[in-house]
């Protein structure tokens, strides 16, 4: 097979909002940038298909204070106030640039553009053309499979495969930004099947750490057997048992565990969006046309009829865990490696609670901007030496087996993920007595994958995705077991209370044997009592 050999100052892996803002910023800083997407930059990832509300707040001290304070208790006070204000500043700037420079057509209300959200297809189509105008080279359908490092362990490039050309490629680079999104474990949640946690696996193999992985219990409401996981409008809904009687205590916020329990018990929960006025119903259609695709195409009137719902796992896409960030430029613990968006931990701005509905998108665009700038500066600092380094691949599982044993591959791993990670009674309604055996299964499949599974060419990406999902699940459950309390989204049935002695963040890492470490919470000195 031919290998395409390329060189860049900065490689961006992933072309969602985080990756495109990183690429734009690095290119504007003078770097030669290549962006690689597993799918297609512009349609790939949950933002493109879903659309997002954005944490866009005027730079007015009172409004900013309110915005920062609003979810602090929900997040277990693990947020960093300094990061929150940097992200608010950067998001404000980026959204204004999106309007002025990318001509995004924001709605205008009373003469004022309304910038608290973006429609996914429009936003990401514009981001793609914007980065191309800025000189970024985009390779679509080109999953990255591993990181390359130099003799000192500094990240110096990537290797991957172009699936529509059936050729491998290698990019030598001064710095790499991982913006591969979170991990939704192939749950078929809207736009999430490309989000299999690849970046976290690559980062860990190069020596990076994760953080916040215990806060990855995000499940979203969707009509049963559909993909459209948009929970916001279910705030206007009433929930029922299969026999049509009200399901007491169920709700889209604060009552989703009741729904999960009933789904486990009876297999059916019905719902009707019966609390929206006629005017609100019309606004819903304009606000999120894709919310209605399942209903219109199945001939259901969601306002007038009861329909069955399900909860789909969104893992770290709407949870907060990811690669640990150690500096303002979104550097990781590995030199030359930067992380942004869902691939990076979002604890700094969300604490232990989902940033769904606004913070996630703000984090994606601002951390992308920070990482792009950081990576460009790092690459510039290397000078000409960057191109003379000897490169070694650090990808292990699926590429460099630990033994000659064979037997399991992608299908077996995905089967374990379905059994041990998707179920509500394991990942959502958590109890050590169920987490421990689940983790043991995951450890066993990891060992089998690590032992002998190998693939190449077009088959490698799928195997690496399976390995990334198993790695994610093991970091999640290891952290969940280490947090013997209920804080933010990390709830434990047998430890329902918040434990003041566990007021810390949890770093987690390792591949074959895992570890956790308590990290002090930063950025609280700025908190206003």
């Amino acid at each position, binding site marked *: 097979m031919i290998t395409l050999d390329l060189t860049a100052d900065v490689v961006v892996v992933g072309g969602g909002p985080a990756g495109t803002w990183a690429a734009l910023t690095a290119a504007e800083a003078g770097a030669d940038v290549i962006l690689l997407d*597993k*799918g*297609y930059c*512009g*349609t*790939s*990832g949950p933002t*493109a*298909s879903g659309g997002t509300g954005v944490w866009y707040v005027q730079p007015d001290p009172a409004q900013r204070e309110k915005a920062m304070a609003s979810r602090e208790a929900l997040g277990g006070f693990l947020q960093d106030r300094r990061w929150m204000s940097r992200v608010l500043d950067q998001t404000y700037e980026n959204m204004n640039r999106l309007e002025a420079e990318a001509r*995004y*057509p924001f*709605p*205008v209300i009373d003469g004022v553009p309304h910038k608290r*959200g*973006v*429609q996914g*297809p*429009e936003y990401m189509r514009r981001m793609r053309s914007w980065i191309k105008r800025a000189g970024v080279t985009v390779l*679509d*359908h080109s999953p990255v499979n591993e990181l390359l490092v130099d003799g000192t362990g500094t990240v110096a490039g990537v290797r991957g495969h172009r*699936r*529509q050309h059936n050729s491998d490629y290698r990019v030598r680079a001064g710095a790499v930004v991982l913006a591969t999104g979170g991990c939704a474990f192939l749950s*078929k949640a*809207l*736009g999430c*099947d*490309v989000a299999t946690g690849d970046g976290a696996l690559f980062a860990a193999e190069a020596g990076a750490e994760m953080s916040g992985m215990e806060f990855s219990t995000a499940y979203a409401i969707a*009509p049963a*057997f*559909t*993909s*459209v996981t948009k929970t916001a*409008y*279910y*705030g206007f*809904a*009433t*929930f029922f048992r299969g026999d049509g009687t*009200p*399901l*007491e*205590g*169920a*709700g*889209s*916020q*604060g*009552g989703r565990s009741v729904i999960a329990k009933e789904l486990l018990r009876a297999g059916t929960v019905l719902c009707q969006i019966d*609390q929206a006025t006629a005017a609100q119903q019309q*606004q*819903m*259609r*304009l*606000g*999120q*046309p*894709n919310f209605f*695709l399942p209903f219109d*195409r*199945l001939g259901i009137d969601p306002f007038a009829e009861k329909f069955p719902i399900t909860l789909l796992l969104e893992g770290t896409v709407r949870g907060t865990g990811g690669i640990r960030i150690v500096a303002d430029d979104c550097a990781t613990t590995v030199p030359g490696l930067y992380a942004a968006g869902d691939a990076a931990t979002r604890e700094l701005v969300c604490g232990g609670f989902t940033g769904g509905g606004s913070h996630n998108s703000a984090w994606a665009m601002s951390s992308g901007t920070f990482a792009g700038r950081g990576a460009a500066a790092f690459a510039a600092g290397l000078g000409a030496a960057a191109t003379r380094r000897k490169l070694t691949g650090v990808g292990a599982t699926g590429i460099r087996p630990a033994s000659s044993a064979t037997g399991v591959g992608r299908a077996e791993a995905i089967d374990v993920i379905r059994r041990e990670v998707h179920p509500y009674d394991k990942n959502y309604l958590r109890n050590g007595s169920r987490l421990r055996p689940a983790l043991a299964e995951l450890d066993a499949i990891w060992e089998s994958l690590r032992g002998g599974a190998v693939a190449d060419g077009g088959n490698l990406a799928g195997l690496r995705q399976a390995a990334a999902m198993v790695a994610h699940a093991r970091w999640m459950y290891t952290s969940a077991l280490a947090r013997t309390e209920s804080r933010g989204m990390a709830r434990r049935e047998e430890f329902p209370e918040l434990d003041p002695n566990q007021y810390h963040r949890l770093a987690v890492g390792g591949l074959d044997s895992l570890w956790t470490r308590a990290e002090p919470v930063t950025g609280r000195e700025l908190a206003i009592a």
Partner: protein
Amino acid sequence: MIELVSESRCVTCDVCVAVCPTNVFDRGPDGIPVIARQGDCQTCFMCEAHCPADALFVAPLTHPVPEDSPLRDEAHLAEAGLLGSYRREIGWGRGRKPGARLAVGPELGRARITPAALS
């Protein structure tokens, strides 16, 4: 999942082959794309949004619909106004106003919790 490529509407532009994030389509011998890996479809509707000829239909289910389902029947889908309906709603295509301009949803209050007894 993707269920239909309309041969009569398709202008063989290959846009869907390019934009599908999970690489579901292959280019067919006559230029009309074929659904080569339906099982990889993530039901994201992006191909439909980008198809300039309203030639694709994505059924809203995460599993294939039966052979005789109306959701695979081009004549039915065209008559029901479902072919190209997502593209129309987001306001893409010549002469349309971008849906993004109009995208203002209702104010979201605090979510309700279902009470025990409802009248």
